[in-house]
């Protein structure tokens, strides 16, 4: 499936890295073997200056994944038209090979909260998110990938299973899915679910990209394990194991190592990418599109 946006190309099915300002000089000087770079769209929405110079240099050498963190697609309030216009301009300027956003919301009547907040899975929220994804794709002029969330709470109102919810949005809008394997592990532990069973039911034919990241661990008020989607460390062994299991169903898929906090020296990120590439090399070259999830 072509998951490209406007360039007509897709990301390569290799490991990619999040682009961090402190690494840019080293990347441009050494041109390391990285499948693609991913940036948070909002960091490149200034008018000009060094960020755009850096992104121009990177996109002349590497495929780009544009990953939004501010659209608030799950919000009750309407989408921010000014923000959509900025996103459209960025897509037109850099022609990323992939564009993705989150199943989450971030806005309050008094402003932007800068966190990816959860929503209940109901008929009403399904219709709202589908309408927002439609509007995003039409305005930006690109197909998007929607990412599964990591969550710490549940809602009494939720009546739709998360995978069914994501698949219905994809079905309604034609969007693809971004499967964050770390988020699957975090949510599964936090809600006493089986992460491997979640992967086994996921509609892998719709997956255009995978995310991997490190998590933090704490306990909740009752002493139950609580994983935090922290993006501040190496990918945990159990997440790499879940990733290997995922690749057994998806085949090779573009895979991002996310490390956004306490960012290490660039070679540490490269080592994580190498680890992921070894698993990608060993993955079967087909996708398991059995509809086992419907059983």
């Amino acid at each position, binding site marked *: 499936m072509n998951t490209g946006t406007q360039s007509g190309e897709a990301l390569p099915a290799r490991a990619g890295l999040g682009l961090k300002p402190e690494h840019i000089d080293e990347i441009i000087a050494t041109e390391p073997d990285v499948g693609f770079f991913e940036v948070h769209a*909002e*960091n490149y*929405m*200034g*008018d*000009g*200056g*060094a*960020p*755009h*110079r850096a992104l121009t240099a990177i996109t002349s050498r590497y495929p780009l994944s544009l990953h939004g*963190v*501010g*659209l*608030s697609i799950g*919000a*009750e*309030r309407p989408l*921010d038209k*000014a*923000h959509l216009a900025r996103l459209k301009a960025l897509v037109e300027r850099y022609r990323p090979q992939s564009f993705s956003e989150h199943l989450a*919301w*971030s*806005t*309050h*009547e*008094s*402003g*932007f*909260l*800068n*966190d990816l*907040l959860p*929503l*209940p899975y109901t008929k009403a929220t399904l219709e709202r998110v589908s309408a927002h994804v439609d509007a995003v794709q039409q305005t930006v002029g690109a197909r998007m990938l929607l990412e599964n969330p990591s969550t*710490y*709470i*549940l*809602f*009494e*109102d939720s009546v739709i299973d998360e995978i069914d919810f994501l698949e219905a949005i994809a079905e309604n809008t034609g969007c693809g899915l971004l499967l964050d394997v770390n988020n699957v592990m975090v949510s599964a532990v*936090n*809600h*006493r*679910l089986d992460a491997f069973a979640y992967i086994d039911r996921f509609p892998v034919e719709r997956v255009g990209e995978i995310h991997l990241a490190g998590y933090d661990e*704490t*306990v*909740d*008020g*009752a002493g*139950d394990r*609580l994983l*935090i989607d922290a993006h501040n460390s190496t990918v945990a062994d159990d997440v790499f194991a879940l990733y290997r299991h995922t690749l057994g169903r998806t085949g090779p898929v573009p895979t991002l190592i996310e490390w956004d906090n306490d960012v290490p020296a660039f070679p540490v990120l490269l080592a994580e990418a190498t680890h992921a590439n070894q698993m990608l090399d060993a993955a079967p070259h087909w996708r398991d599109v059995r509809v086992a999830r419907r059983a």
Partner: protein
Amino acid sequence: MDQNAFASALLDPTLPVPGGVTSARGEADAARFAVYRNNVAVSLSKALGQRFPVVQRLVGDDFFAGMARAYIATTLPDSPLMFAYGDTFPDFVAGFAPAAALPYLADTARLEAQWTRAYHAADIAPLTVEALAGLAPELLGGARLAPHPAAALVRSAYSVGMIWQAHQGDEVGAQTVMTPESVMITRPEFDVRVHVIAEADAVFAAALLRGESIGEAATAAFGTDPTFDFGRAIVGLTSLGAFAGLAS
């Protein structure tokens, strides 16, 4: 779920976990909801720390976190662009009573706010000294200059330029505090420049950036300091990249 009620509870730790929130045990758990509260507070505080690193060093991490928390309670970002969050932070700092012992803190924040604006400003080639020299002398006095999008002037009763400069390296450099300073911030290409300029030059620059003619601006500068060096000032400001061109 009412998202505004959920968000209000995130922003006010004295409010209970919102109704309808539960866990796999079938009950609400304050520690779980607190993860979201913490994410919001920490991520916004971090955004302010990235924009105001010298202010953070001046007061220390703990004090800064408390000041940031107090600001966040009054002002959330008005867009998802975190580099633009905190335009009103300098004014908040000026009125933040626990920081009153550091009277130069707010102006340091003003300098840092302008630094970020300059860093992200549009890529426009500044007016060159050569282009300025090409202007007929009889037209010079009446001409107006268009400010470069990155250009900003911060005028302070304190040595904000020296304070800022002293905190750019790992080691804090020598600094005095009580000397009034005016700081011109520009970005002629990709690197932001921070220059302390003389008082009369600052009066001149402020008038030009406000759109007054070169003649009016020079008159104001001479009024401040009869020894004002017009040629050096206009060439200096132009060389720094303060102007985009002649205003039409």
